[in-house]
Structures are given as C-alpha cells and as structure tokens.
C-alpha cells in the first residue's frame, strides 16, 4: 500500500459550545486478509449536519460506515453515541439507536414488493396482520419525497437499477432516523433524480437529522456537505468545512496528486469509417426502432432518462436479447443470437449492474478478468494458470485495481475496484466495438480519470465506443457525438459543441426537436 502524504492539520471549526456530537468514532481499526481497511480512523457527526466522506476506491469509506452500522465489528476503536460508548452486535442495535443506512451494495429482496422492501423489519400491523393501507401510505410518502411514483406492490426485480436505488433511499427515509448514512446513494441515478435527492438531504438536515454522505461526485459533495472527511488507504487524511476547500484541493488530498483535465483531450481525428451501424432496432417493449452509428475512433454518448431503453439497446446490439432491425459491422450486416457471437466479432458490452450481471462475486479477480478470453488462457482448451495470472496481473497494474492479490475474491473488493475488474474483463478481449453501460458507476475521481484515459486510448487506437451514462457532465465531457433516447426512440443527436445539459434533457424528456431518421 502506498504511504499516505503528511495529513495536513484539519481546517475544522471548533464544535459550538455545548453541542455534543451525535456520533463520534475514534481509532477505528479493521483488517481483512491482506488489507488494512481502516487504520485508526476518526469520524464525528454533529446533530443536524451533513458530513461528507470522500476517498478513493478502497479507501475504507464503506467499511467505516459498516462499523458504524453494526455490520462489521472493528478490531480496535470505539463508537460513541451522544458521548456514550456503544457496543453494537448487529444492524438491529444500530437501528435501535436511530440509525438508518443506505448501503452501497443494494440490500433489497428482488422477489418482494417495493412496499415490503421499504418497510422491512418495521412493518405496520393491525391485530398481528400487516396493515396494507398503512404500508401503501408510508411507501408513497417516502417515494413522493423523492418525487417518484411506483406501484407499491410491484416486485423490486422488475425495477431498473436506478429505481432500485431510489427504493433503497426511500427505505432510509421511511425509517425516520436521526442519523442517515448514505453510501454512494446516487451512483445509479440521473441528474434530475440526484437533484431531488440532494433537496431531500437539505430538508432532512434542516429538520435536525444528521447525515453522512459518501459520493465520488464532487458536485454533490460541495452542494450539500457542511464538513468533509477525507480517507486515504484506510487513514484519516483531513477534515475541513466545505467552504474552506474546493474540489481540486479535495481531490488532490484524496488521490495524492492533482487531477487536471478529468476527461482528457478530445482527439477529433475520428476516422470516417463507420464501424457499428444500427438501423431501426427494436427489442422487447423498451426499444422502438432506434438508429445510430459509431465510427472508428469515435466515442458516442447514449443519453436518456432512466427507463429510456439505453441498456436494452446495448443488450440487443450485443445479442443478449432477441431483437428486430438491422445491425451492420463495417457495413456488413450481422445478427448476433448470443453474446459469444458478438464477442467473436470484437463487440463487447460492459453491463450496468456489475453485481447482478457483471461479476462472479465468489470467484477470484483472476477468474473474473480472464473469463472472456478462454482462448488465451486455455489454448486448445487446456487451461494454463500462468496465462490467466499474467492477463489478470497486467490489468491489475494498468487499471490500478486495489486488491491484495489477483487471487482475492472479487466480492471482497471495494465497489469501485469491482467496477475496474468488470471493465478489465472486456479490455482483455481487445475489442473493436465497446458498449459501455455506466462505465464509471461508483468509481473514484482518480480511477475515473484513468478509465477516461483508457477509453480515449482505445478510441485513438480505432475502437468504436458507445457510452451509456446517466452522468451528463461525463457524457458531454467524453462524447464526440451524443444520441439521446426517449421512451425507447431516438429523440435526437447532438454534436460535441451543441451538447449542453439543457439540450440533452430537452430531448430526453421529449420537448426537444424531434429526431430525423
């Protein structure tokens, strides 16, 4: 592990006299096989404040919060609530202390309804029976705070990732806690949803609720946080009031180096050879004759609201879903019946939900990276561990994946590092067409910069990139062109210069100029 830089003196204002911090964690230490996740970390949350918690992937944020939530028992250190030390043996204890947690990895039961998930372990009952009216009432109350309507009785497994995350948030709101811990609550959300969430956070704070807010999006941090704690390699490297610092300084303290030009230089020497062309693609009930084209070396952004069918479009092109319409590779019509056929043609798809459809969590980093290249690691079908290890090690270094070794289980990695593994598995195939669905979901600024760099390099090398993203700055920053979907239809197309958040939202919500062709 790289050594931390001198932790500069905390630029923190002294607690207002007589204000006892709601929660104080001191000297928390937690080690996992081969990893010192937390190295005597402190965290203090005052009543009615929003404490930002930032740090690279694997810095220890989630672990710290899991300790606070009673999920992980620390090796050392103590947790004080209103000055009283507490011993937490499980999540229930934390709940009893008025703590609600939005975990980074969603903790919903896919087979159960939205209402049942939101009110789990706090179900209202009458005469021992669930009180359905009350459940609907509370569910709708919580959801409407976030400004979304969902049938309270729809199974969660039918919801998009974005919606699931909102349900997760709603659960925390419904808990009426005095401290809400939010571990990357927005990683799957689109701009307007994020804005609504931030509004909710402010409202809660004003009503005296304390919040710990984790995010890799500096914009959010600086919009809502009163104070910001920085973690680095499991160490506390600084605490400051939001007003006393600025994004660049913060990032520098997180990453240990300045990050200039997050999105890198747009190389406008996109060749004109059209590599991937999609004509009138329809798939399932979410994609209606979508058309788009990606040239060699071009990065095309695919924007749209949640549910607009971006994922389904990509999946259809990848041959994962049955579909109608034409798909041409370098002008040659192709029809993929199975992802394997797409792979054979150098087409790759990074799925949006790494946990459900991306990674093999109980398997090693090695396995996960090499899964897509059986030919390489098993020439003539005979497996060579060395080859597998080499492939894995190569990407572990090039993507800076933070893990004890390529033998450690992916399930044990931090969210961002998991995302890097998911990406590595596709880069290993040396693709010519890359379909990226939320490629930087849950990835820290430093890693984002790397991933952007990598994407640019690939593009420069002539790879055609189609990038789905709900983070508008990202789409705008990266894309040479942006295709906007609305309700499964191509709503329009914007060049890099035309592209503004307003323009995209306008098209996505259908109030923009109608698409041509």
């Amino acid at each position, binding site marked *: 592990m790289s050594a931390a830089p001198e932790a500069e003196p905390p630029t923190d204002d002294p607690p207002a006299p007589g204000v006892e911090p709601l929660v104080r964690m001191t000297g928390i230490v937690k080690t996992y096989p081969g990893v010192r996740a937390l190295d005597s970390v402190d965290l203090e949350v005052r009543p009615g404040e929003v404490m930002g918690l930032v740090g690279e992937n694997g810095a220890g944020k989630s672990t710290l919060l899991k300790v606070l939530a009673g999920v992980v028992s620390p090796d050392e250190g103590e947790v004080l609530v209103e000055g009283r030390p507490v011993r937490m043996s499980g999540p229930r204890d934390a709940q009893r202390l008025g703590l609600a947690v939005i975990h980074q990895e969603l903790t919903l039961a896919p087979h159960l309804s939205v209402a049942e998930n939101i009110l789990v372990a706090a179900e209202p009952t009458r005469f021992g029976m669930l009180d359905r009216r009350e459940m609907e009432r509370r569910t709708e109350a919580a959801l409407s705070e976030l400004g979304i309507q969902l049938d309270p009785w729809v199974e969660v497994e039918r919801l998009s990732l974005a919606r699931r995350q909102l349900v997760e948030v709603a659960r925390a709101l419904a808990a009426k806690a005095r401290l809400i811990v939010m571990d990357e609550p927005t990683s799957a959300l689109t701009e307007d949803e994020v804005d609504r969430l931030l509004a909710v956070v402010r409202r809660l704070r004003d009503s005296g609720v304390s919040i710990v807010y984790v995010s890799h999006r500096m914009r959010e941090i600086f919009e809502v946080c009163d104070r910001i704690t920085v973690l680095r390699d499991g160490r506390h490297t600084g605490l400051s009031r939001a007003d006393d610092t600025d994004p660049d300084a913060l990032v520098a303290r997180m990453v240990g180096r300045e990050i200039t030009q997050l999105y890198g230089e747009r190389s406008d020497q996109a060749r004109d050879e059209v590599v991937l062309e999609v004509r009138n693609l329809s798939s399932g009930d979410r994609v209606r004759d979508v058309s788009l084209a990606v040239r060699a070396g071009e990065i095309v952004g695919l924007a749209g609201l949640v*549910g607009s069918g971006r994922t389904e479009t990509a999946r259809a092109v990848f041959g994962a879903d049955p579909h109608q319409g034409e798909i041409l590779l370098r002008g040659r019509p192709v029809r993929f019946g199975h992802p394997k056929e797409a792979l054979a043609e150098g087409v790759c798809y990074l799925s949006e939900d790494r946990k459900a459809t991306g990674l093999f969590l109980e398997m090693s980093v090695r396995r996960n990276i090499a899964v897509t290249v059986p030919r390489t690691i098993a020439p003539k079908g005979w497996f060579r561990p060395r080859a597998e290890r080499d492939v894995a090690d190569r990407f572990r270094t090039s993507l800076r994946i933070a893990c004890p070794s390529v033998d450690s289980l992916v399930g044990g990695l931090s969210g961002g590092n998991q995302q890097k593994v998911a990406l590595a598995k596709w880069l290993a195939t040396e693709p010519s067409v890359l379909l990226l669905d939320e490629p930087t979901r849950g990835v820290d600024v430093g890693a984002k910069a790397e991933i952007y760099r990598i994407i640019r390099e690939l593009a420069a090398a002539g790879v055609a990139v189609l990038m789905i993203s709900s983070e508008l700055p990202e789409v705008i920053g990266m894309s040479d062109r942006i295709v906007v979907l609305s309700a499964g239809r191509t709503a329009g197309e914007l060049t890099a210069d035309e592209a503004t958040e307003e323009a995209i939202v306008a098209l996505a919500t259908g109030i923009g100029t109608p698409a041509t062709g």
Partner: protein
Amino acid sequence: MSTTTTPTADPDRTGSSGASTRRTDSPWLRPFRGRESGLLLVVLGILAFLAIRTDTFVTVDNLLVVARQAALVAIIAVGMTFVIATGGIDLSVGSVVALTSVATGFWVISADLPYIVAIPLSLATGLACGLLNGALIVLTKVPPFIITLGMLGIARGVALGLTSGSTQTGFAPPFLGIGQGSWLGLPVPVWVALVVAVVAHLVLTRTTIGRHVYFTGSNEPAAVLSGIRVQRVKMFVYVVAGSLAALSSLLETARLSVAQPSTGVGYELTAIGAVVIGGASLFGGRGTVLGAVLGAVLLSLITNGLIALQVSAYWQQAIQGAVIILAVALNEWRGRRAVAAGRAGDT
C-alpha cells in the same frame, strides 16, 4: 436465454418469469394469478380428460377418495413451502411422519392417554424434530440439505429402534374417525388440509414473519442488513415443516389404522415436488401455499388417473413422470406467453 432480459441475479428467474413479472398487485390476490391459475387449468384439463376417457373416475365418491389422498400430501407440502421459501430444504419430513406415527401408537394405544393429551403429544414429536433441524442449521451453519438428511436417518432410525420394526394396531373408532370419517360430506383430512392451507396462506402473505420468510429466501445477506432476525425465521420454518408433517402423520395413521415405523419413505420428494410444481424456487424467495396444494392435487390425480385409465402398473411410473414434466412445461409456456402479452401493455 431470457434470464438476462431483466436485471436480476436469480438464476432461477426463467423458471417463473410468468408468475413474477405479471403480478403488480397486493400479496392478497397474488396466489390467484400467474402460475397458480395456470396450474389450476392443467388440473381441470386432466380432470376433463379423465371424465371423457373413463366413466368411473369423475364421480363424487372417487373424487373424494382422491381428495383424501391429496390432503395428506398437501399438508406436508404446505410446511415444505415455508422452508423452501427461505431457500432451505427439509428432507426429513418422511421420517418425521414415521416417527410421529410410532409416537401416536405409543401415546394413544400403549400409554392409553386421553386423546386431548395424546394427540398434542404426538404433534409435539414433529415439532421437536423441526426445532432440532432449525437449531442445528442455525448453530452449525451446515447446509440444510445435510442437517435434514441426517435428521432423515435419525428420525427413521429412532422409529425403527423403539419399535424394533413392529407395527401397532388397535385404535378406537373415534380416533380412526380423524382419518376415515367425513363431515358435511367432506373427508376430515380434507377439512384439516383446507384449514391448514388458509392459515398458512394468511401467515405467509399477511404477517410480518411470513414476509420475512420470503425476504430471507430472496436475499439473506440483505435480510440480515435490514435487521431481520434471520435465525429466528429459519427456526420458525423448520418447526412449521416438522409440525405439519406430524399432523399429516396423525391423519395417515388414523386413515390406515396402524402405527408403523416404515411409513413415509420418499414423502420428502413428493412434497418438494408438489411445492416446486406449484411454482416455488429452490433458490428461495418464491413459492405459494396455493401452488403447493395444487401441486399435491396434481400428483395424486395423476397416480389415480393412470389406474383408472387401466395403464399397466409397470408403466405407470413412466407415464407419471412424463405427465409431470408436460404439465409444468405447459404451465411455464403459458406463463411466458402471458408475460409477453402483458409486456406490450406496459410502459
């Protein structure tokens, strides 16, 4: 591979996309939609077929016979539904039936206790087995398959050991009534099964513990993080399974007028079969009482139907196997068509 069309990790999804994607209504109505209704159609279809092909099968008397047989299976299957919904499995129910049968013989005949005492005592036998299953699973963290496989041996062995294999007869009419009698034209076991089913359905769909059963099976780590006492939930379901197996055993003993240590062999497979036919997933989180009951009915219907159709006893198993696959496949296919139809309507 339709598994991948909607984001979910459940490898079993394809197994019942029909049931799951359609339902957006409350837990109340749920059992009467999707897969269950399909199964109902299959059952009715088979009945219709038998009515046409034989004049002896679809008669009140004979249907009551079938109903009584199905009831005994159904009761066990309902208990199994609880276990399977948590993603567990209980292989010991058959042996629990045997042990309870022996216990019943002892308390009712040998000890000659008043029924008020004897019957609860023999039910307690099953409850105890379930308790032991649950406790061992929770404490040792050994997979349920192993624990209940062990219990399968233990319960059966104790039953054999205590009786050294001998059966016991000499039950008096009032007791035999539980298994052989009728009330308002319906066999007593059918009444019992109905009550059990209704109560179980309410518990699973309308009570906290019931929903926690599904939550645990649907995503156990999440259940823990959500503050569900997963261990209690597990204890609960195995106790239910054990107790209902005991109840079924009581009825069977009364029906056969004999307490025997060798009964119940292979019941676990029938029960699990009924539950899975009913739409449950062995990976947990899915499964309804009505489904299990319909599954049980389907199975008894097939067995009896084949005899009515004069199929040679030697070929019956083969055809039974084929019909089971056919029935479920049909239902599956129906289910998926239903979804496709529904999909268009969405958005």
